[in-house]
């Protein structure tokens, strides 16, 4: 994929960057606040990234645009807040959510990897995916992935495994879950054991010490009984309604049968021949109001409805009986005077009952332990697979690190550093440099490498040149940004490097990259997407 053009528009001004080429591009300026970061972030945002714009920039009102070449197919993207328009070889598609968009992207533009997250296989969001080739200027953290917090380090690793055709890896949720279950069961068991000994020693005290919670319990019983009464009366209402319907239908059958008799008031006989078959010749002549087939069908259907309703009534009666049984159970269990105490039947249960419970819990503990063992062993297998691709990347990271610092002392054993490890000075930048290039080599992805502020942390000039050399060797599009010191700027630092496309941002006004002159060019682009820009909110 090669980025051909990118830009954005806010209110009545716009900026369009069309100087990008295949190969190494360096966007530079002699000072900060010239808009390099906005351009890079806008580029990624238009492709579906999460917004990470600097404060003060109202990206929700802006429109972002990028045009790319995917293996010879030109795809353009226009994004305004949540809406992304995609213009490709087959026309324009509109998406109102990233979920929709990423599905289309993965299917039609370039496949996105899938991972299992929270037990569901899903296509990764651009937010996570773009991190294989993009490094923003801010909020860098070598010990974690960048972004919202929805995705975790493990997801990133799983994504990389998925891209290199390793088996999909289940998260460790199962294990955590099982461990939790086990802990609960064990705790339950120990309480039961305590109670067992307590009940054995002090059966009377066990009853009497519960007095303090008696009142609450009594209240609960009352509520439970009330709820059952409520349900019974609902069921009874339902039953009444159905019974009324049944009697209506039964009455209807009788009525229908009587309706279908002709009112015969005497007989008409032909005066000439005595026949009672007199053919009427009137406009009134019409078909019968229904046929035998229809009538018998109606009666049949009514009968089957009655049958159905009788069954419903029976079912409701069963439900009522169940509720009544529950009610009786509560009543039986609570003789008037001591019902508070009896509510705690469980507490003063006989030791044999507690024994039974303990046995039951023991069985459960066994089965959970079995499950846990299986889960852990399967995760170990997966971890080995994980480490093989991780190892490859680590090795490559070492290789690239040596390209810029032969005597470097950094050790890379993982895609992320440990939490307590902090890099001083240029260390972090070197880590990211190595990591992005290593992932590029290991994953062989088709995306450009995009690094906002690639000299972050006072990288020395020698290292910088070595890095640029490495970037050139990738033979792909690389987009870097850099703020030059005034002496570097006046020395026209990048102009002298072969095969580098320097793009100067110094001439932009401070904090104001947008220009009204570029508006018409941007509006033309919008028109391609069928978007009118005339009635823009200002």
């Amino acid at each position, binding site marked *: 994929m090669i980025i051909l053009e990118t830009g954005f528009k806010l209110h009545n001004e716009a900026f369009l960057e069309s100087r990008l080429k295949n190969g190494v591009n360096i966007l530079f300026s002699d000072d900060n606040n010239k808009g390099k970061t906005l351009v890079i972030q806008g580029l990624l945002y238009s492709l579906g990234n999460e917004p990470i714009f600097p404060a003060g920039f109202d990206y929700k009102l802006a429109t972002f645009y990028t045009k790319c070449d995917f293996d010879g197919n030109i795809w353009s993207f226009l994004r305004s807040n949540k809406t992304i328009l995609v213009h490709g070889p087959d026309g324009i598609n509109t998406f109102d959510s990233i979920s929709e968009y990423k599905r289309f992207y993965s299917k039609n533009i370039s496949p996105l990897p899938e991972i299992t997250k929270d037990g569901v296989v899903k296509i990764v969001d651009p937010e996570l995916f773009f991190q294989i080739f993009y490094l923003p200027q801010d909020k860098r953290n070598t010990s974690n992935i960048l972004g919202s917090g929805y995705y975790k380090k493990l997801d990133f690793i799983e994504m990389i495994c998925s891209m290199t055709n390793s088996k999909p890896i289940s998260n460790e949720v199962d294990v955590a879950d099982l461990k939790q279950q086990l802990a609960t069961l064990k705790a339950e068991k120990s309480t039961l054991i305590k109670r067992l000994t307590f009940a054995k020693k002090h059966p009377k005290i066990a009853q009497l010490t519960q007095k303090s919670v008696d009142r609450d319990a009594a209240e609960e019983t009352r509520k439970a009984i009330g709820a059952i009464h409520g349900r019974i009366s609902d069921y009874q209402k339902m039953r009444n309604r159905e019974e009324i319907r049944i009697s209506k239908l039964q009455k209807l059958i009788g009525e229908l*049968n009587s309706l279908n008799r002709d009112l015969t008031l005497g007989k008409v006989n032909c005066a000439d021949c005595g026949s009672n078959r007199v053919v009427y010749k009137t406009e*009134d002549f*019409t078909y*019968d*109001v229904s046929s035998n*087939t229809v009538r018998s069908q*109606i009666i049949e259907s009514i009968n089957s409805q009655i049958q159905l309703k009788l069954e419903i009534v029976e079912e409701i009666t069963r439900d009522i009986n169940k509720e009544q049984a529950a009610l009786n159970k509560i009543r039986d269990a609570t003789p008037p005077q001591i019902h508070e105490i009896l509510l705690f039947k469980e507490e003063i249960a006989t030791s044999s009952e507690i024994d039974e419970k303990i046995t039951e819990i023991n069985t459960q503990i066994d089965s959970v332990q079995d499950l846990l063992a299986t889960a852990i062993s399967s995760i170990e297998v997966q971890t080995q697979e994980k480490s093989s691709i991780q190892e490859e990347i680590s090795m490559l990271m070492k290789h690239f690190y040596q390209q810029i610092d032969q005597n470097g002392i950094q050790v890379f054993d993982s895609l992320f550093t440990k939490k307590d490890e902090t890099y001083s000075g240029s260390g972090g930048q070197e880590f990211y440099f190595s990591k992005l290039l290593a992932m590029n080599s290991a994953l062989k992805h088709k995306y450009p490498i995009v690094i906002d502020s690639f000299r972050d942390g006072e990288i020395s000039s020698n290292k910088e040149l070595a890095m640029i050399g490495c970037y050139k060797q990738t033979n792909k599009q690389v987009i870097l940004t850099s703020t030059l010191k005034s002496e570097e700027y006046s020395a026209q630092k990048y102009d002298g490097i072969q095969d580098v496309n320097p793009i100067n941002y110094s001439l932009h006004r401070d904090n104001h990259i947008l220009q009204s002159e570029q508006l018409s060019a941007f509006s033309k682009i919008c028109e391609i997407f069928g978007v009118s820009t005339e009635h823009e909110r200002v």
Partner: protein
Amino acid sequence: MNYKFKYTERNVARGSEFETRALLHLITLSKKHKEIKYIFIDCFNDVTGTQENCRTLFDIQSKGVANLTPRKIGTSLITLYENSLTDFNFSEYSLFFPQVDEKYVADSTLRVFGFENFGIRIDEIFEGLITEYLRRNAGVARTDQLEKSIREFIETVVFVCDHADNAEYIKALASFKDKELKRTEFYQSVFDEIRQIQMVKKRINIESKEIAAIHDALAFEKHLKTKDINALVINRLIGVDVFRKKSIPPAFLDQVRALDQEAVKDLILDCTAKLSKALFDKNSKQSFWDFLEAAISEVDKSPMETAERIYSNIESTKGNRCRYMQGVSGIFLIALIKEGVEN
């Protein structure tokens, strides 16, 4: 010149099923079936259709005889031919007959075809017809002019093969959803009803009566109206489903929106009970048919109107005398029609 009715078959009950199929063909499958509003039974011919304004006649001779030879086919064309000689405006002549032996026709898969399909056998048809004509008109000489007239006539005849499936003819009749889902007996019973009514019409004797214009024939009451037949089928389709349907017709939703679930069930039960009473009450059939026909024609005329509006339109224009179809139950029936009618 007046038209004098001869050769009517009022006493022939045999083949009546075949004639019913000829009738159903005329109003469902013939080229101009949408125009046909009245069908004369055994007047001009076995079955003859005409428009609302009685402008022209669509004439069908039905010949339900097995093993027809081309010569017999020619003989069967006699009434059609004689009709063509009258001053009455016949715009189409059809012979409705069972599938003929494939040796007589070039393409035996065709259901409807012209004289060309008989190839050289057309000469036998010609002979059959001219012989029958001369037999009936003693003293008429076989002239070149007569031969030419008969040949030209045969070239205009539409030959229609019967496919003998009563249910299919009924299904073609009503554009009503779900009609495929009924049992064959149901369609047969509707078919039989139409046949009965056709036979009643057939029994009315008009032998030797004369008329001066097509619409004069309406006075004999020997015709059926297509809208009545259509209403009959819709009535039966709705009737057979009363109390069987589980869903609420969409056009009725406005009536139940404000009600809770149980009240909806009760309302639907009341409406279906009233509808079934209307379908059982022999003594108020006229008022029910009037309402049903009004409802069908209003739904047809303004498909976008709500059931409630259609109901009040009927009440204010045509009136509603059916005691079972007052108010919400009438709206319910309209909603059922709206649901069933295919747009």
